[in-house]
């Protein structure tokens, strides 16, 4: 614009455009690439010089006006392309100018401001810039300059880089699945009407993912379904996958059988999925050192996440350092005391316990997860201390099969034990003057640096009476961990493919017998005796029983099968909880007993309807 324009108000561009009315609404009549439909703001270059009074004569903004700080903008399309200006769909601030609004005509002519955009959408233009423009002189403001063109990026020093090949440059995005309209157990509490997002084999935080712009590839909508009779079925509950810390075998397979340990682990891992168990610790009962040296390497090899089957966390070694009088179904001959402390431990269990051999230690990857030991035996305290010194939190020492007094048990905690193996069973009973290991649950005088231990409970109704279980739960609900202590006899029915003629638990033969007065329940005993030998319970049965016995809701019972064992085994965060970064191992529970909206119904009636492991649906 040259100085002569200042005074003229006549439309001078009539000839150039052939239409004076049009000229008034167009931006730059002078430049040919701007003659387009009138009224459209983005028909021209983005500097909206849409004057109501005088169209500018030229599109040259370089005229010096001392009242303003000038912003250099190439108005010519060609110039812009030469200089490398980019176009964006949303106007961005490219600078600001200070103004004292001396000449409002000039203001409207020169800058692309919000006012010009709003002309197209409504009749009310109440922009701050308007007020500034019409104010008296001496009023100074900063006006942002918006443009749909962004300045070219500053020139970077030439970097020699080979461009990535097409297949390498983009990481293949993992599939995102969304589950919605379900109640999710998050950090031990039920969140209603929530949604779970999974990416690949991990769970991601849905809110963050959404605001980052991610969308799910697959949506599974549970919805609410009317059950007949006007009853509303509750939304399904999504719980973390169950963790079983004590399984001796299942479906006819026995983990103490060193000949077929590999097959046993495969079959059991696959078979447990339908019970909702997504991680477990294969338990090896008292055996000769030879057995351990054969079985432990196989367990070590097979642990870690696997597709389509439950994850083996690590071995739970129960014995041989247990009390002879409390051996349960273990073989008398192999039981002995760790007289030489930690050395005996290493000698019996082999290289997986040696302090030198843990190159996996940095990754929390000990092949042995739990060692059950009776603390009152000679050398046991030293053994426990040795294990904890060598492995820290990676191996959990658990008190079990023991005649320990209350003092023995406390000393064991001081040495580093943090768990109690199947409370009540195979241990000194609760006596009012010497509560034994059971007394730890309500102890207030624990040694400094120790806490009340986590305790396993076999809630099959056979191993402990409901009343005892309730007492234990009320004393220490945070430490209540459900275990099945299942063995080879479990999971076999008339349609099982594998039905061995003889069922074993290590070197002992076991038989399944019906429980007196209860034709449905069965118990497993050592053949020919009355001694209980593990259970045939499944984890969902144990959870249902816990709801009935303890009077807690389904959420607390599920916590006892997920969060508590995960915390005890120091894997909370990866397992046992549904939060960002956790493994996508979870189960969908359908509750059956709800009557109406105000009543949760009988929460012990439920079934495991779908199971996901590592983000893949493996059971439905």
């Amino acid at each position: 614009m040259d100085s002569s324009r200042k005074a003229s108000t006549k439309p001078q561009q009539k000839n150039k455009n052939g239409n004076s009315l049009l000229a008034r609404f167009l931006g730059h009549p002078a430049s040919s690439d701007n003659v387009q439909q009138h009224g459209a703001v983005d028909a021209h270059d983005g500097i909206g010089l849409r004057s109501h009074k005088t169209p500018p004569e030229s599109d040259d903004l370089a005229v010096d006006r001392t009242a303003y700080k000038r912003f250099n903008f190439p108005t010519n399309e060609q110039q812009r392309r030469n200089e490398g200006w980019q176009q964006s769909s949303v106007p961005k601030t490219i600078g600001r100018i200070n103004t004292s609004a001396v000449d409002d005509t000039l203001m409207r002519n020169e800058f692309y401001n919000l006012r010009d955009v709003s002309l197209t959408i409504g009749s009310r233009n109440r922009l701050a810039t308007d007020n500034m423009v019409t104010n008296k002189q001496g009023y100074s403001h900063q006006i942002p300059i918006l443009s749909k063109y962004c300045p070219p990026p500053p020139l970077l020093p030439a970097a020699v880089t080979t461009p990535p090949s097409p297949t390498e440059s983009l990481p293949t995005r993992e599939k995102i699945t969304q589950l919605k309209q379900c109640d999710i157990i998050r950090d031990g509490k039920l969140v209603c009407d929530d949604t779970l997002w999974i990416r690949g084999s991990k769970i991601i935080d849905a809110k963050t993912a959404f605001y980052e712009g991610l969308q799910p590839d697959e949506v599974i909508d549970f919805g609410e379904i009317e059950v007949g009779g006007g009853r509303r079925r509750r939304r399904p509950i999504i719980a973390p996958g169950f963790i079983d810390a004590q399984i001796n075998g299942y479906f006819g397979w026995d983990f103490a059988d060193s000949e077929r340990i590999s097959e046993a682990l495969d079959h059991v891992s696959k078979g447990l999925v339908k019970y909702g168990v997504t991680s477990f610790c294969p338990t090896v009962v008292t055996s000769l050192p030879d057995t351990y040296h054969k079985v432990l390497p196989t367990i070590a090899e097979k642990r870690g996440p696997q597709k389509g089957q439950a994850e083996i966390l690590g071995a739970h070694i129960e014995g041989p350092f247990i009390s002879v009088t409390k051996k349960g179904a273990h073989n008398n001959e192999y039981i002995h005391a760790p007289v030489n402390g930690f050395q005996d431990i290493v000698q019996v269990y082999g290289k997986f316990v040696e302090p030198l051999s843990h190159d996996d230690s940095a990754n929390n990857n000990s092949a042995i997860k739990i060692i059950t030991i009776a603390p009152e035996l000679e050398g046991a305290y030293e053994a426990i201390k040795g294990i904890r010194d060598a492995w820290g939190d990676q191996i959990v020492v658990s008190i079990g099969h023991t005649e320990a007094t209350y003092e023995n048990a406390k000393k064991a905690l001081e040495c580093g034990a943090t768990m109690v193996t199947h409370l009540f069973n195979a241990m000194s009973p609760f006596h009012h003057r010497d509560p034994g290991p059971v007394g730890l649950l309500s102890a207030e005088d624990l040694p400094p640096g120790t806490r009340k231990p986590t305790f396993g409970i076999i809630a099959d109704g056979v191993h402990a009476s409901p009343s005892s279980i309730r007492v234990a739960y009320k004393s220490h609900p945070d430490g209540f961990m459900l275990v099945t202590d299942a063995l080879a006899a479990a999971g076999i029915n008339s349609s099982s493919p594998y039905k061995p003629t003889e069922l074993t638990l290590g070197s002992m033969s076991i038989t399944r017998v019906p429980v007196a007065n209860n034709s449905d329940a069965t118990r497993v005993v050592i053949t020919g005796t009355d001694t209980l030998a593990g259970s045939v319970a499944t984890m969902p049965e144990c959870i249902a029983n816990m709801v009935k016995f303890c009077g807690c809701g389904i959420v607390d019972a599920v916590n006892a099968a997920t969060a508590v064992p995960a915390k005890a085994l120091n894997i909370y965060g990866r397992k046992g909880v549904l939060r960002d970064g956790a493994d996508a191992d979870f189960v969908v529970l359908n509750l059956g007993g709800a009557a109406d909206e105000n009543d949760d119904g009988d929460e012990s009636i439920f079934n495991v309807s779908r199971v996901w492991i590592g983000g893949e649906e493996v059971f439905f």
Partner: protein
Amino acid sequence: MRLIIKDSYADVAQYTAEYVLARITEFNPTPARPFVLGLPTGSSPVGVYKKLVAFHREGMLSFKHVITFNMDEYVHLPRDHPESYHSFMWENLFKHVDILPQNVNILDGNAKDLETECTEYEAKIAAVGGIELFLGGIGPDGHIAFNEPGSSLSSRTRIKTLAYETIIANSRFFDGDVNKVPKLALTVGVGTVMDAREVLIIISGAGKALALAKCIEEGVNHMWTVSAIQLHPRGMIVCDEDATLELHVKTVKYFKSIEKVHSLLTTEGSKVGLDGKVRYSAGSK
């Protein structure tokens, strides 16, 4: 301005949700012509969002071609803080419906340059063609969004300091500690809201009664910023009986009578459309 008086909050939420549903359905949004909706936060719209989610679940309402703009957000509060407005919108609406993440616009209180964030927000609204329907709530002091009394009625999106009263009121969400409550917020201006083609304010409860009375019976005043709705060509207020406690009986009777006539007119195949325009042939927009 229309004032629709309902019996209780549940009816207010039902009416508002049905109105939004009807507007979106009549508009029939497509990717080229999306429905731009302005959304509030707070306790008033919670019932509305629940009903909208229910409509979505019944298949009556899809958010695929709906672009939303929120009114406000705290400054320097992490986005995933449970009290941030990002979390509020996620929990109450976005989690349950099929809105696309790129169509969701909420001010970013953690942007490096907050002023630029505000001007770009305005530009984004303009770029999508302006807001079709702006829902809003009201504060006990008559404010809309965070435009506290004294805010200019022509204001645009900007940074606003929160009044001490507001900080104290909000401290209940921050463990009762006033020091944890953010003191600054980004908010759309009164001018921005009134630039929308339609504005719908939800007012419920006796606590808002005085604000409602000041906003509609007295003049346009920057001390009661919702009063700017008096200058809007298509403003609507939906309120419950409790919120009318400070209004003149005459006002209440008058608006109830108008709505009675309006409801007679807006039946199926009627002459008057939802947007108040006269239809010259039945069924056309």
